[in-house]
């Protein structure tokens, strides 16, 4: 059940992350907080479209906003990203296991092939 609650908590974050433009907005903010107008200028889509993306990111709590004069400033919100990372961590362990199985498989099959390779090399030496 603990795992399930983690899965549900990250639902909004993952659906927000599913969109490539929204991921690009996050990449842009990785270098620092920016006003909405500046974020919009960085993309070839309309300003209302960017506003909508920012709203989705805000609802997923992946970014947070404050006002400075008439500008709305956005920056990354580390908390929910950490939850996403936490969810992925379990899968990291999984593919690392897979990788080490792959390593064992490749090394084992290479070990079988080695004698024949050794012969080839010997032949080469003789030719020289």
């Amino acid at each position, binding site marked *: 059940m603990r795992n399930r609650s983690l899965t549900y908590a990250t639902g909004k974050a993952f659906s927000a992350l599913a969109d490539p433009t929204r991921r690009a907005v996050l990449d842009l*903010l990785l*270098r620092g*907080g920016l006003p909405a107008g500046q974020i919009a*200028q960085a993309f070839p889509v309309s300003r209302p479209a960017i506003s909508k993306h920012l709203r989705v990111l805000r609802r997923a709590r992946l970014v947070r906003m*404050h*006002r*400075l004069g008439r500008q709305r*400033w956005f920056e990354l919100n580390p908390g929910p990203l950490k939850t996403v990372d936490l969810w992925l961590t379990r899968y990291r362990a999984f593919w690392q296991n897979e990788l080490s199985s792959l390593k064992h498989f490749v090394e084992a099959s290479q070990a079988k092939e080695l004698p024949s390779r050794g012969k080839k090399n010997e032949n080469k030496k003789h030719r020289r």
Partner: protein
Amino acid sequence: MAAIQQTSNADEIVSEIRIAAPPERVFQALVDPAQVVQWWGQAGIYRCTKFENNLRVGGAWRTIGVDGNGHHFEVTGEYLELDPPRLLLSTWVATWTGDAKTKVRWELEPSANGTLVRIRHSGFASHPELTQAYRGWPRMLAWLQALLEKGETVEQRTPASWS
């Protein structure tokens, strides 16, 4: 509003803004202790409460402030190069990043209707983990701009409330 450009590479974070004020005026805002505390901050984010400096090459500077959670912080440094009103280079050691010493370089270029203000924060090649600790330069430049173009001070600014 003038565009804020933010670029970076492995060693350096570069942020720039156009401000409608002459370089002399911008330079003063960066080194005059009475002016620095007027623009550097926003309630709810962080603000500098004290700034002191010995404005000469080899001279020290220090700022004390309080962050949005009420925690105190301090940044200290030494002026390495001074060429008013074009250039200011100093070291930078902040309490929130431990002993790590980086460099902050301000370049002020006169332009048709004011100054192109560029800040280069370097030294991250030896402290890559710190890059994320310095994502606030664009906002800091906007605060500087608000003082110089509108006379807006930290006191007059609406406190930031995050949503």
